[in-house]
Structure formats: C-alpha cells, structure tokens
C-alpha cells in the first residue's frame, strides 16, 4: 500500500516543531507500524535526510517504549496493543496517517517522536516498591496465603508497562491510571501493607509535583491502555489515599 505520513519533526527540546509530510510506497499490510517507520527512515537516510527519531526496544509489546500518537489515538486505532504490535492492515491504501509524540507538559519532547517519560520513574522511586530482605533469608512466597481474587487483581495491575498511553490519551494528561496500577499492585497484597500509607501519599505527591493533570473519569485511558488496566485501580488509589489521610 502507498501512504502519506504527516509526522511531527522537532530538532530538540528547545526548538519549535512542525508537521512534515512524507510518502511511503509498497508497504506490506503484514508489517508492524514500526517496520513501516523503518522503511521511511531507510528512505530518508539514503536521500541524506535526518531519520525520524522514535522510541522502541523489545518490539513485542512488553517494554512500553514505543510511544506514538497515531491518527489521534495513543498506539493507533487498534485496541490492547502497543505501536510495535499495531499492523499496517489496520490502514488502507492511500490513507494519510498523522503521527505525533505523546503530548503532556510532564512528558517533554526530546526529538521528533521521542518524549522524556522519566516523570514515571520518579513516581516509582517515591514509593512503587516494597522493602524486603533479599539477602537469602527471604520468606517463601507460597508461605503467605493470598486469595486467588486478590492475586489476580494484583497481577492485572502489575501488567502496566508504564508506556504513558494513559497520560497521552487523557484530555487532562492525568497519570492516575499509571499511579493507580502501581499503588494497587501492592495494596492488594500482604507484602504491600507495611508501607501502604506512605506509598500512596508519596506517589500521589510526586505525581502532582510532576505536573500531570487531574482525572475526570472519562475512561479514555482504560480504553487506550495496551494492557487493559482497569479504572478500578484509580478508585482503589483514591480509597487508599483517603484511608492514609484519615
């Protein structure tokens, strides 16, 4: 298929960016979106132009690095996928595809489609962990009884790959689905109880400090999340913070 791409080009974080049009031809419908971007970049390199910078790593939907906003949606029009799992069969011959970086004040653009998502790392550092002794005296995990329901819910929350699609999608650039998932995965388990109050207080405080917006429960994040993280995690985080504040 032949496509027109409208891509955000920005030299660096201090330079103003703009949309630039490119043509790509003979794209296979079996290619992933990133492979299509590779074809474009080969074309640009061979013509002596600067290739389009974009984040990618595992290319199998696990690392959460690919971060494009495609035709007005995080990771494009498919559901439950990252950009590397998005296939060109989702588009038609002759389509014009708009490709932008994830937009949020807390995710500044570094170059073209690459954004700085270290705000998520700082939120994790603020409390997204449990302090356990791993020196060899660690208690056997199976010795701690956990209900199947709690284990399943904690596992569902832990599948968050921190890609930032929730922030990119949210009309308020809120990070509450991400933080809600990180708070929930420990709040549901006995190992997370000791630091539960400090965890939610510190992670929410860091989230606010980073300049993310306020959640207004549109539910867009849950729809666009490649891992299907549920809004229930935001509700749980709200309850955890209320509990920690009383």
């Amino acid at each position, binding site marked *: 298929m032949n496509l027109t791409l409208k891509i955000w080009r920005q030299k660096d974080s201090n330079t103003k960016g703009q949309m630039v049009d490119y043509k790509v031809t003979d794209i296979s419908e079996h290619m992933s979106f990133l492979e299509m971007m590779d074809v474009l970049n080969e074309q640009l390199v061979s013509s002596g132009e600067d290739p389009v910078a974009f984040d990618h790593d595992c290319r199998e939907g696990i690392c959460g690095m690919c971060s494009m906003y495609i035709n*007005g949606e995080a990771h494009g029009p498919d559901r439950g996928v990252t950009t590397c799992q998005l296939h060109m069969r989702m588009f038609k011959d002759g389509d014009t595809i708009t490709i932008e970086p994830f*937009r*949020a004040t807390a995710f500044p653009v570094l170059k073209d489609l690459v954004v700085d998502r270290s705000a998520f790392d700082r939120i994790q550092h603020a409390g997204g962990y449990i302090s356990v002794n791993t020196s060899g005296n660690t208690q056997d995990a199976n010795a701690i009884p956990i209900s199947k329901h709690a284990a399943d819910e904690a596992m569902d929350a832990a599948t968050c790959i921190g890609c930032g699609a929730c922030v990119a999608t949210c*009309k308020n*650039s809120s990070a509450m689905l991400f933080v809600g998932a990180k708070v929930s995965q420990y709040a549901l388990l006995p190992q997370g109880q000791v630091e539960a109050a400090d965890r939610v207080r510190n992670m929410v405080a860091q989230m606010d400090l980073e300049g993310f917006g306020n959640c207004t*429960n549109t539910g*867009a994040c849950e729809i666009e999340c490649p891992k299907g993280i549920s809004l229930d995690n*935001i*509700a749980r985080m*709200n309850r955890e913070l209320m509990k920690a504040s009383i």
Partner: protein
Amino acid sequence: MGGFFKSSIGRKVAMALSAFFLMFFLLQHFSINILSVFNPDLFNEVSHFMGTNPLIQFVLQPVLIFGVVFHFVMGFVLEIKNKKARKVAYVKNNGAANSTWMSRNMIYSGVAILAFIVLHFIDFWFPEINTKFIKGDWSGTIEGVEGFRYYEELTHKFVSPIRVGAYVLAFVFLALHLLHGFTSAFQSMGATAGRKKTLQNIGKAYSIIIPLGFIFIALYHHFNH
C-alpha cells in the same frame, strides 16, 4: 486531612462531595416543583415552609450557596490546571474513539448551567431575598392573590416562550452534565461500583428523569396559563 484536599485526588473528592450535595438538592427541588402541576395548594404550603423555616433559610440556604459556588470555582480551577498539563495540543485527536462527548465537555455543560443559575437567581432568588430580607415581608402573600403567592409567581415566569426555551435548553445541558457527573462522582469517591450496571442505570435514570421533569413543569405551565 488538610494536605489531602490540596492533592489532585483530594480535589476530585471535594468535587464529588459537592456534586452529591447538589444532586440531592436537585432531587428535593424537583419534588417540590412537581407539586405545582398536581396540587397547587400543597405547592404553596411547602414553598412557604421552605421559604420561611429558619433552619432552611439561615443554615441550609448558606450551605447550598457555598456548595454551588464551590462546585463552580473548583471546576474552573481544575480546568485551568488540566489545560496547563498539556500546553501543546495534538494536531489530530480522536477523543470520540475512547470517551463520551459528555465526559470531555463537562466544563461547557457546566458553563451553560451556570448561565442558567444566573437567570434563575434574577428570576426567583433575588426577588425572594428582596421581599424577605430587605422589605422584611415574610407573610408569603401579595396583593391581588388569594392565599400564598408562590404558585402565582411560578406560573407567571413561564408565560414568556423565550424564558421557557432558555429553561428547556439549560436542562438539556444539565442532563448531559449529569450523564457523566453522576457515575464520575462515585468513581472519585473510590466506588468501583460506579462501573457496575446497577449504578450506571440509576445514574442514567436520574440524569434523564429529573431534567425531563423540570422541562415538563415549565412546558405544562407555559401551555396551561
């Protein structure tokens, strides 16, 4: 607890609490207004009680005004903060792919409701305050009207088709606001039940029946007086 209300989640909770209060107020306001259709005498009696009872006038009324002002001011404050969280807008954004129009436009439906409240205050609340607190007339009567004045005043306001049109439009916006706001308030309070069918259905019923009821009252009096 003070620090809690300074956090983003605390503000959400504060918005939800004021929303619950306003939704309860709306329900009682509707319960009284619908009496004007079925039993004008009872409507007059209840209106007089509400308009002269010291607990309602001096305790609940200031709480209501605070609730209304708080909900609007906080709504604007949060909107400004949220706009700052994305200074560069997307060239192409397909919001309809993942969220409802109502959820994305609460600020606009809210502004429409605010405009209506201004009209409503000019129509009803300011004259009431003038009569009772400035003129000192707590009798609930007026010259030329037998018994209490409230029913007469209400029906008089719905003579103008322009006012009735504005009234109907405002309640359409209120329905749109509530269609997202009802379940959103529960979600903000940490209720996962907000996503379950029962509460969603109650929310839809409330959001449609109450505004539709107010529209019915306005149209009923417009076409019958």
